[in-house]
Each structure stands twice: as C-alpha cells, then as structure tokens.
C-alpha cells in the first residue's frame, strides 16, 4: 500500500511544474500544455482523495475536469489560431495591446 500523502506530493510537484511553465514560457501553445499539466495535477488530487475515502465522487469530478480541459483546449487553440492569423506570432510577449 502506498500512502496517500505520496500521491498528493506528486500532484503538488506536478502542479508547481505546470505553474512554472505558465509563468516563464513565451510560446502560447506551450503555456496551454502547462495548463493541461496543472489540470492533471488537480485530477490526481481528486482521485487520491477518492481512494482514501473509498467513494466515487472524486472520479466524477475528474471526468468533469477532463471535459472542461477539452473545452478549454478547443477554445484556446482557436484563439491562438486567430491571433496568429492577425499578428503572425504566438509569443505571449508580442500580444500586449491591452497593456496600453
């Protein structure tokens, strides 16, 4: 039996790696991939607590997270395509119209 704390520590490490990628990467596509990493860390936490408590609610939550991740990927990639078409770049540093 592996203690649940190990799974939770792995989820924390994975979430922090995703957050680091979101904060430091310049390519918008890689930023989206790091958001997927963070969503997976959340899923891992849900499933760990479901296993600890022995009920299925965590599994249902993980399903919903996966569905929301699919919706987010579709919308986000469509926005990336639209931005690339109008500006010719997917670097987040080049998209600063709303800063001024």
């Amino acid at each position, binding site marked *: 039996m592996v203690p649940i704390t190990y799974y939770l520590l792995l989820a*924390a490490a994975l979430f922090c790696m995703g957050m680091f990628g979101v904060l430091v990467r310049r390519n918008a596509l890689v930023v989206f991939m790091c958001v997927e990493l963070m969503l997976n860390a959340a899923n891992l936490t849900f*499933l760990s607590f479901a296993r600890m408590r022995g009920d299925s609610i965590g599994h249902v939550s993980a399903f919903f997270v996966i569905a929301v991740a699919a919706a987010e990927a579709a919308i986000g990639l469509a926005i990336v395509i639209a931005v*690339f078409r109008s500006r010719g770049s*997917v670097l987040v540093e080049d998209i600063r119209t709303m800063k001024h």
Partner: protein
Amino acid sequence: MNIELILFGAFALLTLLSAGLVIFARSPINSAMALVSTFFFLAGIYVLLWAHTVAVVQVLVYAGAIMVLFLFVIMLLNLGESPTRGRPTLARLAGGAATVGLLAVLVITLLKLPQTTGGVPVEAQATFGTMASLGQVIFTQWLFPFEAVSLLLLVAMVGAVVVAKSRI
C-alpha cells in the same frame, strides 16, 4: 519494498521527467510529445489508485483527442524553434520564486495532513472505480452536472469554429 511502491516510484519519476521535458523542450512539437508520455504515465498512476475508468478516459480523450488537436495546431502554424533562449528577466525570476513558494506551502500542508487511516487508504469495495459503479453515480446523482458539461462542450465547439474561421 512491495511491488506497488516500486511501480508508484517508477511512474512518478517518469511523470516528473516528462513534465520537465514539456516545460524545457525547445520546440513545441517536443513539448507535445513529452505531454503525451506524461499522460500515459499518469494513467498508470491512476490505475494504481484503482481509477481504471478514469485511466482509460485519460488515454482516450487526453492522450488521444486533445493531443491530436494540439499537434494539428502546431503543424498548422508551422512554428520553428524558439529564436532566443530565454534570458532571466525580472518577471521570470518572480515566477520561479512564486513557484518555489507555492511548492513549499503545499508540501508543508500535505505533510501536516491528519493521518486518519495512518496515511494508508481504506479497503474499498470490489466495484470501486469500475465503469458500472461510476455510471450509476453519474446518471442518478450527478445527472444535471453531466448534462451541463455536455452543453458546455457544445458551446465550446461552436465558439471554436466561430473564433477560428477566417470569414463568415
């Protein structure tokens, strides 16, 4: 040293290595490939947690559908490698510091978690995590959220088409 702990250690190590490759790979294609392998190893960890159904959905939906979408967009945009290796700006240093701080807080919190069952999971029923028991829960207790998520996916699909098409 039992087999479950060894499997968990191997999957956890491979997951973290692949996640690091996602962050530090130079071309987006390599990042996407590393993300696919991350999802596979995470599916292995989900199986260790008795979440077989979620592991199958992870491989089918995440590693299959969503990553195909990512790869398709990367191919469509025809991006090369990043022109410059990122130099450490103030924003990046602040991001790294924030990440380390969050990790420290999370680890301290998790280590102080009340160990009600000695940190070892309870013995679940034999039907725990099977597709039949999950379907029973989803289609009775969680039917409305399930339908709401299907509506969300429909809206996202229509929205993606509207945003990405070149002209009406």
